[in-house]
């Protein structure tokens, strides 16, 4: 079904689709307990991305969600900034055009102390990718587009109002107990993916510790506001805001003329009081000045916390997104990380389920994505500390950095109001021979002259690695034969960069491919389905290439 024939739920001036509950076959047909290869719990950002990614790889899944709509509590706050890597994933999944059409583009960011602009920056030229460095969009839109895309792909059994209450591991499957409006039922999942968020009943049922910590007592009040008059389409960040008793304020554009205004609260402030609509309106009037008309879309208090699971795999269960890790929202590292969790697990599951990789490949999901989560924790705690100095000495240092930043570019680098989510470099991964960094989705020209971009080469089925080869002048027929043997022995697509009479080729569209790959003639770069580099090799060193391919497939 599509969103158009769905019922609607109204909230904060928004009308969101609701999706109908359908009696599951287990109840309707009083069927025997059924077993499915992949079951995903939670139709949030991470779960829907995974279902959609697997559908593009030709894999059927069942998705169980306790709710019947997108978003959480309607059009509420949640993620709003989608970073380049996520947008590239969405391009591969086929929803980027809708995101671009709906999202708010901004390039200019200003950092302020009271009424003084400490510095400003322009982000319009920082990416070689077909996708921008970031786009702002309310999370429920992304989820909406994902549901539509999943339904169009027709490989996913999306079950709304199906609440998972228990998961029990068996030798070759997981038994999942589900509650629905039509009663309870049980299904079996060969692989269960828990994308049900921080409050996961599955994870709690297994008694797994998320090592909760409150590295900071920082409390914020998130306020989504619709203005009748347009503000400049820029991001403004007050490290110290006069309208907020000297504490920080964020002002971000979103779609539909709605703005995200985050106010840092005093330590130990009462969450119920600070988020009361009257109190929120007073604060907004102080911030915006009298005479600016606005409408509250959503107000909510927020205390920053950190959680991190020891292992993201537990038997036949994988944890993705907030079920595995939670960080404070600085740098938009929550949702964007969940999307990359999904992408990482999707290509590994696709290769495993098609028999091209052993189960060992699945273990590397936890290894690689936990390393990314650890990095996020580190980066976000530094921001939190900058924004909430713990002593007079720290405050003095921050004031010094702010004072110098007004005059000198070097000090601007010290002002930490959040470091935007970027793809993690898998340098310590057992799958990576060398590199591990993510290549940007640069434009390319295909052999037939058509324009495309790098990610198109790793989209859909079959799920492949790329061996991009820059032929040397001396490359002979035996080099070609050797490289071609990779295609026969591994899920690898071999492409010459430039032209070659015996091998399919791609060309640089505007010089960005050469800049991204930094590939010397006579070398081959092995690129994973998630566009991360697995290694760079001399064109004639077939044993090294075979070893790297074996390694990166977990064989």
């Amino acid at each position: 079904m599509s969103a158009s024939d769905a019922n609607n739920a109204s909230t904060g001036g928004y009308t969101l689709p609701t999706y109908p509950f359908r009696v599951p076959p287990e109840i309707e047909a009083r069927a025997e307990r059924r077993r499915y290869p992949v079951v995903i719990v939670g139709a949030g950002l991470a779960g829907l991305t995974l279902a959609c990614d697997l559908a593009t790889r030709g894999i059927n899944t069942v998705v169980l969600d306790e709710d019947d709509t997108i978003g959480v509590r309607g059009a509420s706050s949640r993620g709003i900034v989608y970073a380049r890597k996520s947008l590239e994933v969405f391009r591969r999944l086929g929803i980027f055009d809708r995101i671009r059409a709906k999202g708010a583009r901004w390039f200019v960011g200003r950092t302020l102390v009271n009424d003084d602009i400490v510095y400003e920056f322009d982000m319009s030229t920082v990416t070689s990718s077909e996708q921008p460095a970031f786009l702002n969009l309310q999370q429920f839109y992304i989820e909406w587009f994902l549901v539509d895309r999943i339904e169009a792909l027709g490989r996913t059994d999306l079950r709304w109002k199906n609440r998972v209450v228990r998961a029990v591991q068996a030798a070759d499957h997981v038994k999942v107990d589900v509650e629905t409006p039509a009663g309870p039922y049980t299904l079996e999942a060969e692989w269960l993916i828990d994308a049900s968020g921080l409050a996961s009943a599955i994870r709690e049922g297994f008694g797994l510790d998320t090592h909760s910590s409150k590295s900071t007592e920082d409390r914020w009040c998130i306020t989504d506001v619709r203005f009748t008059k347009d503000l400049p389409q820029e991001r403004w960040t007050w490290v110290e805001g006069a309208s907020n008793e000297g504490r920080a304020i964020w002002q971000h554009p979103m779609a539909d003329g709605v703005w995200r205004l985050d106010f840092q609260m005093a330590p130990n402030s009462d969450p119920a009081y600070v988020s009361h609509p009257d109190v929120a309106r007073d604060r907004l009037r102080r911030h915006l000045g009298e005479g600016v008309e606005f409408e509250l879309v959503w107000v909510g208090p927020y205390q920053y916390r950190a959680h991190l699971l020891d292992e993201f795999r537990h038997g036949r269960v994988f944890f993705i997104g907030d079920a595995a890790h939670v960080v404070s929202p600085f740098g938009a590292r929550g949702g964007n990380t969940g999307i990359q969790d999904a992408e990482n697990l999707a290509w590994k599951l696709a290769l495993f389920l098609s028999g091209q990789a052993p189960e060992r490949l699945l273990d590397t999901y936890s290894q690689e994505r936990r390393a990314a989560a650890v990095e996020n924790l580190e980066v976000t705690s530094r921001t939190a500390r900058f924004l909430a100095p713990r002593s007079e000495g720290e405050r003095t240092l921050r004031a010094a950095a702010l004072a110098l930043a007004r005059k000198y570019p070097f000090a601007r680098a010290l002002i930490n109001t959040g470091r935007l989510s970027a793809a993690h470099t898998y340098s310590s991964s057992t799958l990576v021979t060398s590199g591990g960094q993510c290549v940007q989705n640069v434009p390319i020209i295909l052999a037939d002259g058509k324009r495309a971009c790098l990610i198109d080469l790793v989209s859909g089925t079959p799920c492949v690695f790329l061996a991009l080869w820059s032929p040397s002048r001396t490359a002979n027929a035996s080099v070609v034969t050797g490289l071609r043997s990779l295609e026969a022995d591994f899920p690898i697509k071999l492409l010459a960069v430039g032209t070659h009479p015996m091998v399919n080729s791609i060309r640089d569209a505007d010089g960005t491919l050469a800049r991204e790959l930094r590939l010397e003639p006579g070398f081959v770069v092995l690129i994973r389905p998630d566009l991360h580099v697995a290694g760079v090799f001399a064109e004639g060193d077939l044993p090294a290439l075979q070893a790297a391919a074996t390694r990166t497939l977990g064989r």
Partner: protein
Amino acid sequence: MRTDPGIADPDVFYATLVAAQEGMTAAESAAFNARLVLLLANQIGDFATLLACIDAAKHSAD
């Protein structure tokens, strides 16, 4: 980290540093020194050297 004498004219430097803080309150002086630390750190740049300096400063008050 360099610990052999490296400042061109130590007496002049020290007198200049003191003169710059003349008449400042303790808070103003702390703010001044913080700005100076950040400016000087940018001259050094190299993280290993900065780390050695932070460490030496922390342990030379004992």
